């Protein structure tokens, strides 16, 4: 595999920008399932599988599904973050398969966040 130079780092940053910052990409929604040890122990795999099934069953093309490590609030896992392009990201907590399904229907497809399961909207500060 090719050895990188500094210009390549910048090129990668540009090309990946669309997935890390939705505004610059093609996806309409980005879903991040938090899968640190805490999330996995609490049941994040069920949440992830539910989302994969929903995406497949509904033949959805414009949703980016990814995972990340621990989001910090370990006692409230399983957690996911839903970011609809043009809106603030919403963090959902204490999820299971059924709640995840409902969030996919109502928020991802329907555009309306499920306030009962939502913890917060917005992103953390990196100074």
């Amino acid at each position: 595999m090719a050895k990188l130079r500094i210009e390549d780092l910048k090129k990668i940053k540009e090309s990946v920008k669309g997935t890390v910052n939705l505004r610059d990409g093609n996806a309409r929604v980005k879903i991040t399932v938090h899968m640190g040890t805490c999330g996995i122990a609490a049941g994040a795999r069920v949440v992830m599988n539910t989302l994969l099934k929903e995406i497949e069953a509904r033949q959805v093309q414009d949703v980016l599904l990814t995972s990340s490590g621990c989001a910090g609030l370990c006692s409230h896992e399983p957690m996911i973050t839903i970011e609809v392009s043009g809106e603030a990201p919403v963090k959902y907590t204490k999820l299971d398969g059924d709640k995840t399904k409902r969030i996919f229907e109502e928020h991802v497809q329907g555009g309306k966040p499920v306030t009962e399961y939502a913890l917060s909207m917005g992103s953390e500060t990196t100074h």
Partner: protein
Amino acid sequence: MEKTYRTHLLLCAGTSCVASGSLEVRDALVDEIKKRELEDEVYVATTGCNGFCAAGPLLVAYPDGIFYQKLTPKDVPYFVEEYLVKGRVVKKHLFEPKKGSDPIPKISDIGFFSHQVLVALRNRGLIDPDKIDEYIARDGYLGTAKALMEMEPQQIIDEVLSSGLRGRGGAGFPTGLKWKFAAGATGSPKYILCNADEGDPGAFMDRSILESDPHALIEGMIIGAKAIGAHQGYIYVRAEYPLAIERLTTAIDQAREYGLLGKDILGSGYDVDIDLYFGAGAFVCGEETALMQSIEGKRGMPRPRPPFPAHKGLWDKPSVLNNVETYANIPQIIHRGSKWFSGIGTEKSTGTKVFALTGNVKNIGLIEVPMGTPLRTIVYDVGGGIPNKKKLKAVQVGGPSGGCIPEYLIDTPVDFESIPATGAIMGSGGMVVMDTDTCMVDVAKFFLEFTAEESCGKCTPCREGTSQMLEILTRISEGKGHAEDIDTLEKLAKVICASSLCGLGQTAPNPVLTTLRYFRHEYEEHIHDKRCRAKSCKPLLKFWVDPEKCKRCGLCAKKCPVDAIKWEKKELAEINLDICTRCMTCYRACPFDAIE
């Protein structure tokens, strides 16, 4: 007297806005304001996210309360000219926030998030650790590029020194100084090592960084290697972290594929490679010299210092061993500058600290706060306070080497000066909140059980001393304490602290010493009154209902799983000790604390 400005400009530093360039806008603003000589009139600061992520980079101007959106550095000179100098609202960037309150709280309104400042954990929740491209997209490996291509080793060391970064593994030794010693040492090859053993029970700061952002560690080690003149690094990771090992392995493989590890990194001419070494379950192998013995294939036991590892470490060669969190701060210190880092925290304890906040607190999780944050803020604002309407009793900091800080000292700031003044140590970041149902003798016993078991046995004070202290504490918790036990514990503790070979023994008595300092009355009650006020030490419990406190509600009888409690409506409850299995369900059920 505090300075008054005529205008405050607050720029959002939430992740979305930062990704869209809000920090570049901030820098451009600061420059332009300086050029126009307005620094004494206009104050520029960053704030947390208020949810309008689609409009970022976002700026709110006070006292007008005007929102400006989608600013770029190019817009700044015009903006400063129009708004700050001529006082005219810049219509092009005007933003009208939606009227009416959103039912979902803003992240900046939630105490758990709003008090945190992410430096070591800057990528948390945002990247897939198995995709190196996502790390690069968030300015990954730019610190490495700068260090390898533009800086001499001495410059790197100077930058780390002026940042004020102190070791995050617990000892708080200035990182720049450690690197300076190793850089100046004679011997080859030199080694750059990472302590990812994280043995403290209840601590998971390092695990989180390893699982969620392994490249931050890799970058930190590459930069450290250049600083001291090493080309080989080892990460000593405990085998009990399988997910961390998996993610680290993937990260190292991907870095090697991209040539970010290996020969001639980024065309700089500098080589660095990193390999993993797995621990085998010994707490003592988290001690630097024992760790190095373990890598050499020997039994992990510490050795006397001097010589210090910076001069004679792994295989007797100059080595630097730093903690995971320490390394995770390095890439940003190099990329953004030491001045940025030292601006966070306090004068002597710069930067942030990651804590694993656990115990009797509502928001259990991983937090990163600026040094100097009071414990009170951490427990109540970040942690959300004590659940089940209980009251705070103490906060245990520093794991088995640390100590208990009592409730009345809750305003103590967390930094390397204030915490040791209470008798505890900062430690690697374990923070256990304890409510009034906690028995402090039991806490000391719990930690001594751990350290006595983990003592390697090489030196007598630790090997014999910890077992002796444990034996005394066990007797006390069983109601078999002797009058002279407290004095014996104190004497033993002082000897063990003063004469143990390594940090394990030197700090093992700390939980005993701090609980004696602040909760001596509990020890005395256990010994003389045979009473455990927290109702935790079972041998001291009588399983007897106090007729003066019992409100005759019958809850205990209803909850008892073996029907051992006799109760009629409005009558005193009575526990039949022949049937009672001592399960303590009745203690937890009674709302009036009536069972002794």
